[in-house]
């Protein structure tokens, strides 16, 4: 996968300034878990609402004016327009401030930034989506993108896990995918509760049990760094080569466009050369820098 040319995306720059956010308004808030909420929002500017488009895998910088800016992947699919969705985990200054906002609040939006999931590479192949916790957010965008064009892809396996049943994100999506006969969904939790009937175990362990075939397949992994680090060796064991393993990474970001310097992994910047990478690209640095 090569570095995508991102110059053509300048068409969504507010007043031509790369740091100036557009104003978006929160439409709807969905409670996912005790600490995660999905915000549905739309551009205040009517014209932009119609024009705006993005591709799965890209992220945005959301601003709470006066508090700060933070990076969130866009977890809605570009095939389902009308609004944008970001899943936000309440962990710090900006995310706490976001959680205090209600419907109708105005925030800033800069984006879409970053590269995209390589849909052309994935077409005609069997897809194995592996997600952990809030890592399902970017995967959700690509999963709906794929399901909305189902006949272009082969077998689809989704393996998703969280710490506990309460921490499972997008429960309504999981319900919908488990009904979909063309998808094999396996959910697992680290520790179940008395009502839990699904699997128990860490995602990499469950992945090894399910053992999806590496033949004509592409694996797409997203989750906490420790999960990613343990998933790659399992995939290698199952016969996946580094070029067949795709992941989307997360690092502390500020500018989102490769200028402020902080999100680098080796010579690659997660915001500019990523966040979507193949394992082959980051293999040299992943164990040490991520």
């Amino acid at each position: 996968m090569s570095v995508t040319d991102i110059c053509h995306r300048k068409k969504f720059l507010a007043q031509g300034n790369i740091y100036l956010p557009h104003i978006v308004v929160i439409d709807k808030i969905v409670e996912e878990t005790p600490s995660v909420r999905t915000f549905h929002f739309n551009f205040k500017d009517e014209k932009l609402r119609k024009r705006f488009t993005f591709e799965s895998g890209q992220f945005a910088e959301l601003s709470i004016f006066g508090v700060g800016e933070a990076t969130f992947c866009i977890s809605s699919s570009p095939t389902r327009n009308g609004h944008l969705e970001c899943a936000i985990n309440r962990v710090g200054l900006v995310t706490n401030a976001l959680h205090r906002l209600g419907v109708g609040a105005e925030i800033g939006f800069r984006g879409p930034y970053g590269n995209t999931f390589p849909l052309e590479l994935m077409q005609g192949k069997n897809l194995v989506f592996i997600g952990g916790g809030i890592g399902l957010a970017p995967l959700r965008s690509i999963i709906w993108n794929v399901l909305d064009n189902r006949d272009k892809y082969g077998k689809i396996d989704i393996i998703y896990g969280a710490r506990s049943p309460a921490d499972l994100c997008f429960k309504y999506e999981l319900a919908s995918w488990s009904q979909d006969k063309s998808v094999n969904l396996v959910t697992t939790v680290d520790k179940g509760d008395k009502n839990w009937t699904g699997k128990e175990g860490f995602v990499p362990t469950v992945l090894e049990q399910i053992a999806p075939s590496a033949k004509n397949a592409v694996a797409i992994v997203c989750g906490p760094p420790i999960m990613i680090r343990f998933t790659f060796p399992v995939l290698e064991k199952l016969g996946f080569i580094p070029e067949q393993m795709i992941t989307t990474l997360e690092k502390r970001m500020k500018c989102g466009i490769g200028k402020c310097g902080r999100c680098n992994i080796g010579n690659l910047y997660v915001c500019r050369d990523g966040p979507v990478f193949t394992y082959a690209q980051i293999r040299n640095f992943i164990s040490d820098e991520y």
Partner: protein
Amino acid sequence: MTTKKISKKDIGKLLEGWSRELTVFVPSKDKGVTEMAKWDGKDTGFLEWYRNTVIPAKSSFLPAMEKMFSFQKNNDGYHLELSPDQQKRIVFGIRPCDARAMVIIDKVFTDSYEDPYYVSKRKNTVLIGLSCTNPYDSCFCTSLGVKPAESADVDLMFTDIEDEFLIEEITDKGKELLAAASVVKKATKADDAKAKTEKAAVSAMVIRKLDIEDISEKLQACFTDKDYWEKVAAKCVSCGVCTLLCPTCYCFDICDELSKKQGTRYRSWDSCGFSIYTQMPMENPREAKWRRVRQKVCHKYEFYPMNSEVIACTGCGRCIRLCPVNWDITQILASVPAEQPAKK
């Protein structure tokens, strides 16, 4: 190219002429530290004491603190207002190392997306270089392809030839600026020859040397050598001096300031040496000091060249002069193992 010259005593007149239309920045001590500051209109004493400023010339283009935009919450929502800096300026006296540094970091601010604040400052500024006459013992510019008394990275280059400066017009911007200056005369062949000797003499005064051959490959080979990097990082105290005052370091932080319903978004200098630089909610990949030190060295001498074919260092020596514990990059780079360490 025809060269010109000016007598040192006429520098004041030259700057005065320019300052009628443009803001002139010169080396200054007024604030308590040497930096490029607005000329007070009369003092040219800096010609005597100036060796190099502590605050690098990048502060004229990427200031330590910069307003990005202001925001205001009205009844109908948020309004954002830009205040771009359109001041036309001259930076007089930039040294070749600092000028080269600007060219090196230009790539960051124009690549893929153009940074409006930096780029507009660069467009609206004329850089006038001044040759070194007295390099520090910590300077090592010559090892990085920078010559202390000559530069093609500026608009006009002033070379010190005793009582006068030889002036070379490097760009059209510089030529235009010089055109109206009446105190500037044509240089003679003797002046040219004098300048040539002077340039070579000053280059020879740079005694600190650094071998950068294959440095990128060498660093790649020892990237995972924890023991080596722990030893290298042992005495570093993780302050930000070397990075904040480095002319080729450009990392910045963005934050908001709020006062009732209005505020400003600022950007400010940041450093990969700080432990919170890569802090994430659940973990920090560079919590250990040796990882941060490795990042600084490898970013400048391995990653940056991998992305843009130029080492992000110009040998100005500030990091060596100002480091609280005398951590010396030239010593570190000389100690990088030549071969891959044996796998344990």
